[in-house]
């Protein structure tokens, strides 16, 4: 455990030493802190409807104004960072765990396991990611959980392919061949040699998937097919702002700005990670 803690610390230090990593890392860290401490930071209850103060422009009490129900926009924008981080991390961690496991098994055992896994991956990748998520939402109904799981499923084949490609390369190296010759247990070889050595592209892909999933969630919520009211989501807030562009432009500006800032931070962070971990072309370009 100590090894993981010290290598994570080293990783964070290297991210902040990288010019793009410093910008991206700071932005992402800012949103993480906001999501964790939002009950302390938000000036109002995000769901509290103040009928006397509907569509108030930004002022000293409501820094970013209020919406059509008199809810404080700043509080809702801050709370929405929670939904974004939950969706991004679930898609990345859940899709990553399943995908990496499948890729590891497919790459190591090859034969029919490989064929089956890769055909299944091709199948999911035959649909654009957003449409996979849409299909799931149509069947299971919208909501935070459905959207998270749908995006995890959409990202699983990407992780599987990358892991498989790395495993196929690493499997040919002498130390792995030697371990197999010595009769080391298969599980041990996978954990000790294969998984550790294909960690870099997986980490970079995970950072990309967080961004792609947050983008997809906000897109679905914008269509009214993602996170449902009264939960705060940037995409949903943008959807609700559409009827008020002429009278209350702040309703569209605030959530869009927060969403874009978070996504830009993630792009910068994954660019920096790609540089630091030197993974080059292994990671698929923005799906």
């Amino acid at each position, binding site marked *: 455990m100590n090894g993981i803690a010290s290598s994570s610390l080293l990783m964070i230090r290297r991210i902040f030493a990288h010019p793009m990593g410093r910008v991206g890392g700071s932005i992402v860290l800012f949103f993480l802190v906001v999501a964790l401490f939002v009950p302390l930071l938000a000036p109002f209850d995000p769901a509290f409807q103040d009928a006397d103060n509907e569509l108030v422009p930004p002022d000293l009490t409501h820094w970013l104004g209020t919406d059509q129900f008199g809810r404080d926009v700043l509080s809702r924008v801050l709370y929405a960072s929670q939904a974004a981080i939950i969706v991004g991390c679930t898609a990345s961690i859940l899709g990553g765990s399943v995908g990496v496991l499948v890729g590891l098994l497919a790459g190591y055992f090859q034969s029919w396991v490989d064929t089956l896994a890769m055909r299944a991956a091709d199948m999911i990748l035959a649909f654009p990611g*957003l449409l996979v998520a849409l299909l799931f939402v149509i069947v299971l*109904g919208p909501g935070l959980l459905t959207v998270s799981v749908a995006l995890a499923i959409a990202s699983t084949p990407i992780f599987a392919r990358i892991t498989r490609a790395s495993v196929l390369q690493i499997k040919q190296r002498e130390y792995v061949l030697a371990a197999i010759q010595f009769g080391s247990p298969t599980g041990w070889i996978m954990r000790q040699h294969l998984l550790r050595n294909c960690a870099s592209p997986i980490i970079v892909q995970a950072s990309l998937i967080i961004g792609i999933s947050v983008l997809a969630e906000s*897109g679905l919520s914008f269509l009214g097919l993602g996170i449902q009211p009264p939960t705060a989501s940037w995409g949903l807030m943008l959807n609700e702002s559409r009827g008020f*562009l002429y009278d209350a432009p702040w309703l569209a500006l605030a959530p869009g700005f927060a969403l874009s800032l978070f996504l830009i931070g993630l792009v910068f962070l994954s660019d920096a990670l790609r540089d630091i971990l030197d993974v080059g072309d292994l990671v698929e370009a923005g799906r």
Partner: protein
Amino acid sequence: MLKYSALRILKSLPVVLISAFVVFSIMLLVPGDPALMRAGPDATPVEVAAVRQEMGLDRPFVEQFGRWFVLAVRGDFGKSFVSRVPVSELIANRLPATLQLATLAVFVAALAGIVSGVFAATRARSRADWGISVGAAVTIGIPDFWLGTLGILVFAVWLGVLPPGGNADLFGDPLLALQHLALPVIALAARPAAVLSRFTRAAVLDVAREEMVWTARAKGLPEWRVITRHIVPNALIPILTVLAVQFGQMLAAAVVVETVFAWPGLGSLLVGSILGRDYSVVQAVMLMLVVAFILINLIADLLYARLDPRIRAGLGK
């Protein structure tokens, strides 16, 4: 080339069939009884049974799928649950608007992405290169629907120079149509252009390191000639693949962007049908989008093989 093309086309057929099956299964999996929905809330059980029989819902699932698929291949997707209009008619009305939007957006994205990428690569590590790189990274982070909303806010609400949404007849009044197209095209093209710009820069720098470029310079070709004759054509091959992937993504992104601009295309038809539980339309539009996506990837692969003989040789093994 012929053998490669035949193999590649054959390989995509099962993908089309299975995705059609997945899309068709929506009907089975969604909550609620389609026959009940079609018959309406006041229908008697006998009427519902009649509708069920008429829709073929009393048949085994695989048979239902087979019938639906065969008819779909002929362009017959049945009738809308809600409006009772043939689905093919709804699609025919909406398809041209989506095609206009998507083609123009691909063109804009390719032009902006490739030109800025080549420009950045030829001035690698300069201020201009740095500016383009940061600009592209920022653009990738901005969601298309917010860019569109911002566009409406600035150019329609505040400046009043462009319409906030809808479309116009491209052949009747081209100028008005272009005004309607401007914001949706930019919203749709910005992200793919940025992805393409970054990729082009990397691809050009990659080719520029190759020996044939040294040779070209050594035989005294002027630098612009080296770039246009040797570097860019070779870099274009991988760029084409990325462009195709981005085009496919654009089809999905159009679903959201069309909603922002109330653009009367397939995307807004799909969203409206999902919200209205009009599943025969959802199935049809979904199938069309997926088939288009598969087709684009197929064409890209074939073009790629045409341009790079090494790919053809690889598949033969």
